[in-house]
């Protein structure tokens, strides 16, 4: 996967057929992480703390519903175009941002399923394509390729 073209609000990524299939497979697995996020504060025990936590949980749940809908949308043909080198993935800036969040959710969900290890390098080598370790690495691979090359330098 590589960035093939980019203008102000349009991103075009070149994938090979295997990458396209893997990315579609990942999208179909979303969501993998639990909907609940972290507590909004480690130390705030004021009267409004419970309300704040409730508001955060509701906001994250609503965002999750939006991302689910958008994950299905990213599988639709309008985002994909055939080319001699393999499928092209066409994204607006907003859709690219959404795809990043979806992939990161999958990566995080796999890490949680693996028991939240501190040292990722100590994990057992990747096995079948369906293992959490493999899915986590795959999501990370696509994330890195989606990020603006400037951030990676």
């Amino acid at each position, binding site marked *: 996967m590589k960035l093939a073209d980019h203008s102000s609000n349009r991103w075009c990524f070149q994938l090979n057929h295997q990458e396209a299939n893997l990315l579609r497979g990942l999208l179909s697995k979303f969501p993998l*992480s639990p909907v609940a*996020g*972290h*507590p*909004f*504060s*480690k*130390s*705030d025990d*004021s009267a409004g703390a419970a309300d*704040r936590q409730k*508001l*955060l949980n509701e*906001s*994250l749940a609503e*965002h999750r519903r939006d991302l689910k809908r958008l994950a299905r949308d990213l599988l639709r043909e309008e985002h994909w175009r055939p080319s001699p080198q393999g499928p092209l993935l066409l994204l607006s800036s907003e859709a690219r*941002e959404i795809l*990043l*969040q979806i992939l*990161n*959710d999958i*990566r*995080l969900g796999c*890490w949680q399923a693996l028991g*939240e*290890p*501190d*040292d*990722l390098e100590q994990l057992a080598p990747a096995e079948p394509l369906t293992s959490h370790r493999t899915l*986590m690495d795959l999501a*990370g691979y696509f*994330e*890195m390729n989606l*990020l*603006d090359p*400037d*951030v*990676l330098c």
Partner: protein
Amino acid sequence: MVSTSEPVTVPQPVIERQEKSADALAPTYYVICWNDPVNLMAYVTHVFMKLFGWDKPKAQKHMLEVHQQGKSILVREGSEKAEFYVHELQKYKLHATMEPAT
């Protein structure tokens, strides 16, 4: 040396009492991002740039603080704005909290 026979009058300092607005007295919060071993460093940098409009060096500085020191204070804001940032950061699956600024 110049001499003068006129008495010199030194103006007395005027001490103004400054009134703080209600906003200035309202509690403020630190928005803190905590380290985790799973979010990619480039992803965290990207999120900081996107959410706070920071340039890459500033975003990377905070990302490295998170990575090396375990946390980074990102901004100090009133409750409403701090809450907004925590919501947005958690939507990106970063471990962010707001803590009362003392």
